[in-house]
């Protein structure tokens, strides 16, 4: 398992267990498609043996980033280097990078085994070893026995897994993963994420992973980059991304529906909806607090509710797996947009019922930069 518990402190510590390898470096990478600038001025470093996750809204340039590194797009500006070697003159097939494409891109004219085998043949692996490896990889992705199946006769998720197995078979020094697990059910996805992390770790592969699943990013990656509109907004450990988003944009992208101004003083940070404890790394003065749905707990406002706690009215209720998500408005603060809050399944307020709101520190993020 790769990324065990990131925390504010351990994340910034030097990665002493890694050799001082160079890994992947992007400098000032800009990619344009005609008039569209898909990536602008991206600097990035993924040390050898580490995995970087890339998060970002649809169309922000994630695929373009991977394709450029693979050598499939020609950068308009900037440099890409791996282990100190500049890659602009190195053709795709000499880079030794593997890629799982967003759309799979299986070879329609080969069967499942043939697709995986292709990567092995490119590496001139012997016949019997190839067969064993194919079998092993297919089993890894849960497709044992599918060797002879035509790839046109696979389900969407099965095809995606074949693409993953194929990329792993290439045994690349850098693995580029473009939403490799997006079409799979959660259970399989979790299992494969763990298996993948193990493979990456065992082979000391460097990796760049595009995903929309934040948990997946945190399971697989050492650090995560948030890409917005072709620029890297923040590159950080999962913990810091989640709890210390660099910008409001990142906070919102990572689920903070509401961002409120706050004031840090002594032990607490105070905002319009209450207070949260002030962490050690929080400077005093004006900060912003990002609120996720789980950052606000709503409870029916019985008579005994303490005075001073903000009150809100339930506007919408949506059932979620293990909680109920509410949309509430705060009559006392008409300037505030509707807020998201959660409540437990046990005591669900009705529509238009009045509730009291409590800030839940674990559901908040702190934006300290201005």
């Amino acid at each position: 398992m790769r990324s065990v518990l990131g925390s504010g402190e351990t994340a910034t510590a030097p990665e002493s267990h890694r050799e001082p390898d160079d890994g992947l470096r992007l400098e000032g990478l800009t990619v344009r498609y005609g008039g569209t600038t898909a990536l602008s001025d991206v600097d990035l470093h993924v040390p050898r043996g580490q995995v970087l996750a890339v998060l970002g809204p649809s169309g922000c340039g994630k695929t373009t980033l991977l394709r450029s590194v693979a050598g499939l797009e020609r950068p308009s500006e900037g440099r890409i280097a791996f282990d100190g070697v500049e890659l602009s003159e190195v053709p795709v097939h000499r880079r030794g990078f593997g890629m799982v494409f967003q759309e799979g891109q299986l070879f329609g004219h080969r069967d499942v085994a043939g697709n995986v085998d292709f990567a092995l043949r490119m590496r001139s692996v012997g016949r019997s070893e190839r067969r064993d490896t194919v079998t092993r990889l297919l089993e890894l992705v849960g497709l044992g026995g599918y060797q002879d199946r035509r790839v046109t006769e696979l389900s969407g998720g099965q095809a995606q897994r074949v693409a993953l197995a194929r990329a792993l078979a290439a045994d690349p020094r850098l693995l580029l993963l473009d939403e490799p697990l997006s079409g799979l059910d959660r259970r399989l996805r979790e299992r494969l994420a763990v298996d993948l992390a193990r493979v990456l770790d065992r082979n000391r592969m460097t990796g760049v992973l595009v995903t929309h699943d934040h948990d997946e990013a945190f399971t697989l990656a050492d650090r995560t980059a948030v890409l917005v509109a072709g620029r890297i907004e923040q590159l950080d450990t999962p913990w810091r991304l989640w709890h210390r988003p660099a910008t409001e944009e990142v906070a919102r992208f990572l689920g903070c529906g509401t961002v409120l101004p706050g004031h840090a003083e002594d032990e607490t940070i105070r905002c319009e909806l209450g207070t949260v404890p002030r962490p050690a790394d929080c400077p005093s003065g004006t900060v912003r607090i990002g609120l996720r749905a789980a950052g606000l707990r709503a409870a029916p406002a019985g008579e005994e509710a303490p005075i001073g706690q903000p009150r809100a009215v339930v506007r919408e209720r949506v059932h979620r797996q293990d909680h109920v998500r509410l949309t509430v408005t705060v009559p006392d603060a008409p300037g505030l947009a509707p807020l998201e809050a959660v409540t437990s399944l046990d005591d669900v307020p009705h529509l238009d019922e009045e509730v009291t709101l409590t800030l839940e520190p674990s559901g908040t993020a702190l934006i300290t930069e201005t």
Partner: protein
Amino acid sequence: MAFPDEPVTTEEAAGSGGAANGGSPNGESPNGGSPNGGSPNGGSPNGAGADGTAIPGARPGGHAAFITVGSALVLGFLGVFFAWPVAAILRLGLSSGLDEILTAPETWRIVAFTLGQAAASTLLAIVAGMPLAYLLARVPVPGKALLRALITVPFVLPTLVVGMAFRALLGTAEPNAWAIVLANAFFNVAVVARTVSGLWTQLDPRATDAARSLGAGPLRAFRTVTLPALRPALWSAGAVVFLFCSTSFGVVLVLGGGRYRTLETEIYLRTVRLLDLSGAAALSLLQLAAVLAALAVAAIARGRRENALALRRSRAAVRRPSGLEWIPVGCAVLVLGALAAPIVALLVRSVNSRGGWSLAGYRALSGTGGVLDVSGWQAAWNSLRAATDATWMSLLLGVLACLVLTSLRSRWTAELMDAGLMLPLGVSAVTVGFGYLVTLHVLPGDLRTSPLLVPFAQALVITPLVIRTILPVLRSVDPRVRAAAATLGAGPWRIRREVDLPLAGRAVMTAAGFGFVVALGEFGATGFLARPETPTLPVAISTLISRPGELNTQMAYAACALLMLVTAGAVLLIETLRSDSAGEF
């Protein structure tokens, strides 16, 4: 429309890009403010990615050395066996008389008729070929390989014989332009059916599914989704058929009875009868110009977008037709009937004459003596050997040319080269043949009388066909699949071998079968160049048909039957080979 009039979107509704536009502190949108600025891509056809030039792996490699050597080989062959002889014969004639020919209104009437009948024939061949293509690509027909083989049979029949069969069937002894069109189409339905079905088989049927689920009926889905996807193959086949028909000779002579004249018949008249080389050269130039213009039109129409199709051969696509889908199946059956009629007539003639039913023709054919130097079997064997040589030569050249053509960066260079390779189909066989006479003795070993010349000349005719069959498929290969192979460590050559060739593998084998058939039936050049001790079947047929006497006639028809049999057998064999060698399909 059931949507509300008020915007249903929230403030975030500008979407990912839009949200970034509005909210990004960095200000720069990835889409460069495209919303009102027309094409977000800037509309530049040369933009990176727009034509794929900037994307490594989008083309199958781009070795300068390969392109140079490949082009040199292909263009060298074309130069020696086509451009040089034709240029030489044209130069002999170009001393005078050009303006006289060009100013004659008669000339322009002939040009108009040539192009008109070719266009009409092409259209008819396409209309008749499409249902057949559908049948071959999408309907489970038992014994499809046999069917595919059978529809190529018309292609090898000597034009003279087919012309006579049509005259007999249509009962039109008088010159008749529609009969010409019909017979031309008869020859070429197979070109359309095979070329189009080749691509159609590999089209991803899910695109049609999408259209159907959006409310498009089968016809509409065909017109809006399938047809545009088939366009490369259609233009390809159309161009070939157009060339065949615009140089149609035997058919025009027999059914036009001298009243309908084309550039081809005029060139023949002037070259062979009148030795009016200057008149012939002027007309040849006109023919060349007309053919080039037609090719240019096709290139422009086709080239607008020969986009990467998701080729995805799927067994599920072949299924029992239902509902309206029976209509094209019915049409295909009608077309098959129409194709069969002249063939059956020929077969009947081979066993029936005024003397009643008899196998005399076949018996005589299997022995020697009579007007033929060799037996029918020997002639068939000669045909097979020459065709085999011509086929491998043209496959070599054609595949090489395709690889070069798809590797070329500049579209116009590629188009020019493409057109150059097509020209042999658009130039009169007489011109080429006479050109050989005045040039090839310069080469060592006087090729003019060498047995190698027949396969060379046939290869010249087949190579354009090979290219037209393979190129559309190769151009349709999704560059992203090549990219995938590259990331797995496949270099440009490896990609060619492992991705392009297997994907085009069917097309290569189709081309091989088709080229073989053409070589079997080729008479224009073969008749001119074949040596008497090794006549091919078409040469033998021509000898037999130009003799009086019942037996000769019956032998000619028997030889036609033999030619058809050999053709069907050869195609069947090649098609079987195909499914073996490319078993992954």
